[in-house]
């Protein structure tokens, strides 16, 4: 896949609730993009529109310039893996291995490729020791990794990860960073919906900030995190490092590394 475009997309749930309005968004394969914003801003709805679980009630979505209008959810989903916010909404097999192998098998991928894909997915997510376990014997954080492994094995062009860092600890978050980097380097488009601004600051160059059914700002991550007005509107909090940097008079710094390099390159204040 080369690119994805949302053109004036709105969605109204049956019953009349307008969840997103006039979304315009363009992204290319190989990009990693964070979607941030308050609860109820329309992030998950946008994700479901991209993978076809929901169909725009207005506007259209184009993949490589071709409208997805009229295509079935099954046809679109083949290209777009949506990893649910709640892994328990997604997991349905009795053991980790069956869960991971399910989609490529369903798509009738040849045996050799299936084996390769499953091996890669297991390796990337570090689930080897749990391969024969029932997913429900694993922690929430591990179950989330199972659903990500299943998406990797499906080998789509677009990944949408909904709150992947929820309940992950430091090691889990470091692992997720690696997974996202690897997928992007393979030319996949990785869209990550998250509230974890530290994770966004350290991992994503581009961020889309949503509030009240709209895209409020779509820009470089550092510009969004240091824009107090936008962060306030989206009910987001700046990261500790970026706050500290601003407090000290250094604007636009959002990572620990940049922060330390900057202050250590600076002169000390006279006491």
């Amino acid at each position, binding site marked *: 896949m080369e690119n994805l475009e949302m053109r004036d997309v709105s969605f109204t749930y049956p019953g009349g609730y307008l969840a997103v309005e006039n979304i315009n968004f363009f992204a290319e394969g190989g990009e990693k993009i964070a979607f941030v*914003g*308050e*609860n*109820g801003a329309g992030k*998950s709805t946008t994700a479901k529109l991209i993978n076809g679980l929901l169909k725009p009630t207005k506007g259209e979505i184009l993949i490589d310039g071709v409208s997805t209008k009229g295509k079935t959810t099954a046809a679109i989903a083949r290209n777009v893996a949506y990893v649910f*916010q*709640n892994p*328990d*909404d997604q997991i349905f097999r009795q053991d980790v291995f069956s869960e991971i192998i399910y989609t490529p098998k369903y798509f009738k991928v040849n045996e050799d490729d299936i084996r390769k894909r499953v091996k890669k997915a297991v390796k990337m997510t570090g689930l080897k020791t749990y391969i024969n376990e029932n997913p429900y*014997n694993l*922690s*929430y*954080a*591990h179950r989330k990794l199972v659903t990500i492994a299943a998406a990797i094995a499906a080998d789509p062009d677009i990944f949408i990860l909904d*709150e992947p860092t*929820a*309940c*992950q*600890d*430091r*090691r*889990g978050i470091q692992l997720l960073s690696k997974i996202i980097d690897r997928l992007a380097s393979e030319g996949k488009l990785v869209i990550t919906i998250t*509230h974890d*601004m*530290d994770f966004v600051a350290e991992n994503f160059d581009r961020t889309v900030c949503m509030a009240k059914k709209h895209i409020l700002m779509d820009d470089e991550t550092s510009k969004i995190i240091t824009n107090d007005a936008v962060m306030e509107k989206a*009910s*987001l*909090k700046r*990261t*500790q*490092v970026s*706050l*500290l940097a601003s*407090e*000290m*008079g*250094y604007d636009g710094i959002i990572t*620990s590394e940049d*922060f*330390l390099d900057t*202050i*250590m390159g*600076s002169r*000390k*204040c*006279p*006491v």
Partner: protein
Amino acid sequence: MEVIRMNNLSYRYPTTEEYCLKNVSFSIQEGELCAIAGSNGCGKTTIGNIIRGLIPSFHGGEIEGTLEIFGKSSKEISADEKAKRIGFVFQNPFTQNSGIKETVFEEIAFGLENIGVGREEIITRVMDIIEMLKIESFMYKHPLELSGGYRQRVALASIIVQNPEIMVIDEPTSQLDPKGTEEVFEIIKLLNRQKKTIVLVEHKMELVAEYADHIIYLNEGTVLLDGTAEDVLANEILYKKNLEMPQVARLGFQAREKGLMIEKVPITMDGAVKIFAKYGKCVKDGGGSHGES
């Protein structure tokens, strides 16, 4: 007064061979906001389940050592009494929602109905909690239609309304946006001020640093550190072992590693601002020299 005491407790789930808690001992005082912190799989949630009594009564497994609550052995406290005096907010709100109530209001009232509280009192208590948690705008919505963050607030409300003496709260903000997270923590603080003992299972260390009086830090099923927020979160062992700690504390250790000899490792934003202030652009010192030239 000591309200919870665990002595040399070890526990293993029925389906696993390895013990997930090994010789865990600690004590929690009445009215404390005590955080159980640590990485995934270290046993935080298990401790919450043991205090509430879901282990071993529901999950089974093998348990050694002792647990005392309200000065009595946990075994001598009936399930009924535990349910009334110890509230438990599940990590995953999707697990906790009853699934049989059609509005948020009824969902919150469910626990009170079950123990036979009168209609008028139920309405008053539920409305008080709805106001306190700022969920008026969706009190007539179906609980299953809510987003993860809203469900989390409803789950918390359903327990607070029952007015338990101890509240065990398992990662209450995992699905909330940062503003919602802060609101929930303000509610927890408020409950704590009303003398509730709060056992908070949490791995967001920035929040723990800001709110907890006492931290029990677990690692691989044992107690690694036990003390005040300052003692625990600025401990170098956490940095060396690559474990969870507040972003500013990690920054403090990283700075030292790079040769910047800050006198103290901060654990909160305010602390960090004080400690790092002298490396700023001199904006704050009023000395006239503004910005780099």
